[in-house]
């Protein structure tokens, strides 16, 4: 197979960068900052190169780089992207430099360590999205927990230690089940293939043959781990704590990228590996997703802390994504993929804005604000814009994702009922309530809190961080084709894998990988 090392370079940039940072004197704060921003920007540019070379007409994995790693177990360093993972890679490399710039002045102590962990985090996130070997995936999945744990635990708020440990153990607990399932899968592959393998592409044709009763368990083991990360109701309670306690940059990455790993995992592993189990589980998981949409929105509505409000809104928004995935239509899955990006942008922007105002006032209580429209017009505009994006106003990004998800789920043959969509669509109403109500209490009215006097509007650096995000919010809203096109073939392939799983005999697989035989169920 032809090798392409661009993805490896992409992941090496932050990895080598973070190691180099260890050798820089910690007093050279500014140098460290510029170095990290420069490196992560370089990584973004490289991911753009990958984007431009990517062939969106091809549904196969591209930019594959496969190197033997653990010989005895047939485990490889094996990376590659398709349209879905490419979009998430771009989201990651796009948000990382922006969040680093956003924490320019808010992170004052231990800058060196912070930057180190942040770049390590990028390594982990990219690794998760590009791994095509389950073992490698698992390593990145777990490795990424560590920097996040420290980012929350060291630079977080008052309850940071509780939040960090809760985050770590919650997610770790889920992953262990996944590890068991991965090992089981690899052993199972010995049957049809004749050898132990963790190669995802090979497993795609093997796993669907697993007998139903076991397939269900395998599905659950993976799904549980991903559902925690999403987070799917009722596994979401780590999220508000982690978000509220994390520093702004941590919250942005947590909401922007980390949560997407859960939904990405469902889409990358659960659906194609265990299609029959997925179809059986779909209505149940969709019920949880819809509960999450409404529950998250209702709880967000009554929050008194802005950051917690945004955190609960994530539960609601990610519910849409999960519903889209398990509605299993081309429309809904395309919607889910674009909604992952959307949520990263709009919730990322909301967290950045909360960070901007928190840095000035040191309060996140909604009641402490009011009437700031007069004091900080630019900020007020930006908050309105990000809120509208999150509300799903047509013309901005959020609408495209929600609309496609709901449109697809309404006609899903798997869910086969209007009710999922009817309830989910009511989330659209609640989203308007909690965001506009928050906006009203923070921005409108008269200034009552004397501490707000002399509040400074956003500075050039803060505007510089938000502007690119806003550009993409409009871009996706008006011309989503740019992005939908990238994942179109890959999502179509997932849909095909669900309804017509590829089942291959070992001989054929050994002879020619492309002559896959389709077996209709």
């Amino acid at each position: 197979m032809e090798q392409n090392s661009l993805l490896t370079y992409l992941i090496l940039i932050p990895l080598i960068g973070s190691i180099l940072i260890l050798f820089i004197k910690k007093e050279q704060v500014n140098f460290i900052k510029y170095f990290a921003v420069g490196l992560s920007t370089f990584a973004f540019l490289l991911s753009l190169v990958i984007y431009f070379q990517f062939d969106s007409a091809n549904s196969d994995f591209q930019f594959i780089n496969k190197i033997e790693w653990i010989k005895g177990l047939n485990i490889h360093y094996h990376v590659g992207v398709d349209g879905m993972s490419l979009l998430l890679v771009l989201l990651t490399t796009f948000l990382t430099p922006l969040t680093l710039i956003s924490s320019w002045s808010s992170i004052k102590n231990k800058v060196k360590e912070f930057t180190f962990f942040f770049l390590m985090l990028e390594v982990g996130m990219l690794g998760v999205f590009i791994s095509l070997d389950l073992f490698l995936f698992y390593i990145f999945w777990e490795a990424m927990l560590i920097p996040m744990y420290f980012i929350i635990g060291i630079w977080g708020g008052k309850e940071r230690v509780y939040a960090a440990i809760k985050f770590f153990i919650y997610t770790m607990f889920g992953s262990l089940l996944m590890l068991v399932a991965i090992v089981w899968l690899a052993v199972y592959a010995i049957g049809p293939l004749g050898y132990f393998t963790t190669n995802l592409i090979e497993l795609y044709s093997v796993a669907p043959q697993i007998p139903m009763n076991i397939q269900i368990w395998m599905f659950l083991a993976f799904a549980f781990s991903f559902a925690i990360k999403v987070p799917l109701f009722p596994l979401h309670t780590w999220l508000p704590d982690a978000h509220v306690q994390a520093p702004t940059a941590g919250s942005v990455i947590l909401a922007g990228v980390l949560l997407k790993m859960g939904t990405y995992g469902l889409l990358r592993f659960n659906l194609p590996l265990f299609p029959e189990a997925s179809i059986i589980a779909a209505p149940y998981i969709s019920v949880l997703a819809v509960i999450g949409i409404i529950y998250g929105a209702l709880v967000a509505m009554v929050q008194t802390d802005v950051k917690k409000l945004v955190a609960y809104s994530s539960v609601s928004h990610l519910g849409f994504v999960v519903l889209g995935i398990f509605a299993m239509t081309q429309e809904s899955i395309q919607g889910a993929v674009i909604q992952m990006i959307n949520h990263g942008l709009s919730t990322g922007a909301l967290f950045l804005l909360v960070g901007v105002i928190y840095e000035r006032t040191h309060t996140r209580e909604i009641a402490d604000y009011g009437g700031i429209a007069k004091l900080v017009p630019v900020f007020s505009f930006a908050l309105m814009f990000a809120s509208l994006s999150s509300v799903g106003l047509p013309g901005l990004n959020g609408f495209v994702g929600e609309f496609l998800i709901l449109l697809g789920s309404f006609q899903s043959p798997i869910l086969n009922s209007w009710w999922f969509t009817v309830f989910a669509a009511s989330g659209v109403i609640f989203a308007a309530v909690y965001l506009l109500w928050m906006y009203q209490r923070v921005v409108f009215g008269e200034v009552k809190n004397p501490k707000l006097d002399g509040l400074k509007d956003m500075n050039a650096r803060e505007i510089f961080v938000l502007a690119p995000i806003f550009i993409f919010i409009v871009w996706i809203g008006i011309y989503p084709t740019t992005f939908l096109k990238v994942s179109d073939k890959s999502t179509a392939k997932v849909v095909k894998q669900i309804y017509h799983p590829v089942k291959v005999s070992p001989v054929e697989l050994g002879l020619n990988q492309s002559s896959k035989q389709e077996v209709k169920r």
Partner: protein
Amino acid sequence: MRELIYLTVVLPLVGFLINGIFGTKIKNEKLIGAIGSGVIGISFLIALGAFFETLGLPVDQRQKIVTLFSWLTVGNLNVSFAYQVDQLSLVMALIVTGVGFLIHVYSIGYMHGDKSFWRFFAYLNLFIFAMMNLILADNFVLLFLGWEGVGLCSYLLIGFWYDRKFEKSTTSDAAKKAFVVNRIGDFGFLLGMFLIYMTFGSLNFNEVFSRAVSFDVSTATFGFIAIFLFIGATGKSAQIPLFVWLPDAMAGPTPVSALIHAATMVTAGVYMVARTSIIFASAPDILMVVAIIGALTAFFAATIGIVQNDIKKVLAYSTVSQLGYMFLAMGMGAFSAGIFHVMTHAFFKALLFLGAGSVIHAMHHEQDIQRYGGLKKYMPRTYLTFLIAALAISGFPPLSGFFSKDEILWQAYANGGLFFWILGAGTAMMTAFYMFRLYILTFEGTPRFGHDKHPHESPAVMTLPLIVLAVLAVIGGLIGIPEIFSGEHGNQFHNFLAPLFKDADRKLASFNAHSHFEEILLMVLSVVFAVAAIMFARYVYLKKISIANNTAQKFKGLYNLLWNKYFVDEAYDTAVVNPILQTSRSFLWKIADNKIIDGVVNGSANIIDVISINIRKLQTGVAQFYALVMVLGIVAAFFWIILSL
């Protein structure tokens, strides 16, 4: 000109961007106002050009679609930013840009001196942009973009003076209420779109409407689609049960009330029903629901309008009531009559609001009509134009309102029967009454305001739009003279729109046979009612005000009910809003989330903690203890092996 129709969408957007981005730098009110009005004026001229070009074309070539670029392409879905020029969209485009232009010009005077003058014009332009998307869209999704967009602008403009109080709460409360209630309607609209897509496999108008004729679809499916779409319409067009936001929307500046909450945006629901007439015509039961909701809204809103004292509030309820009229027409399958009323209503209601604005401007933001009186000598132009508008809305012949209202009443009788006619005629009578109550208390009689007020006529930039609208309110009805006077095919407005509704007409039962005598009789009756109501209002409010006071005293219960708008807001708060808030706060958040779910999470951590603490005690560090355990273990294993042999 037709291929340039997209400019009527783009130009307002350009105006919005210029004033929105550079407004604070431009500072010059005249320049900002000129940019804001100018882009709308040019849009109007383009729409007018397209209109005349269309008039010159044979009927089967009158539709043209101008596609800019593709928007959403997934699976079977393929919608674009594409604008459709046809008879219906042109009529609406002319109303929106024409009346919109006049209101923009008026606003230059009305908003003079406001610290956010630029922001006002930016929002107004953005509104026209969204509204043009709504009416020119060639597919449901783009229509929805406009639909939500006008909702956003409505939100921004109701809360324009975001630091002001409004009644018991604030302007921003009113704004939020408008947006949220509209979103409830939008929820219905969304579901309607999903079902359309599922049924017809497309969301483009031409495809959907032709498939609605050719596909074999059950009446029940059409019924669901129609009811979902109609829920959307009740939100945007303030019908029962979602009308509650419109009276509060009066918190916005008066030109906003004229443009958005009277002439254009609120008629979007009527437009949408007319646009999807084939779907509604395929679901006769739902069409009947539309008629009933429309008639009831018209009637009940009129009863509320009778007792209100805030000049804008009277007009707001009047708008709700007139919108009900339009839905009554829709429900009767009289689609072009409904659109005709949309047009005439845009003229006279915009005029009424702008006139009210002129009065409010002159009276230093006093809005209570009990504190007006005798203003006609201070502001002659406002007075005269307002009188014309009041006559027009009362259905006084041959002003515009007479023709449009009468056509609806006739259709209500011919297709719906006496019940609908009585509701409609009763509404018309109440309308004439409260409108002249308003007019007389404002302009006639003796002044009831203090010496601190110095009413004066508004500047020409405000009165000129009034005069233009007054002319339109007078002559606007002449293009829709009923056939009974103008001969067969003499109703030009109807003829122009007819091709669009021919599929729907074919599906609906044809007219019951009625004689010309009946039509003339009913027409005369409605005019007599209107004149009687006007005379009565004149008598009560000019000569014997005691009648009004005594009646209010005598029927105190009813009066309170009307004064408090049937307590609908309170009922919604008690039955819906508060329970949701309470449950979310005290149960979902504080108990379900914090106690139950997190309780399980922290609880399992605690259990492990407790177990570990106890197991740890085994690690005593005393070697003798370990040895003892080891010996016991060996003995136990030994016995186990022996026993299992």
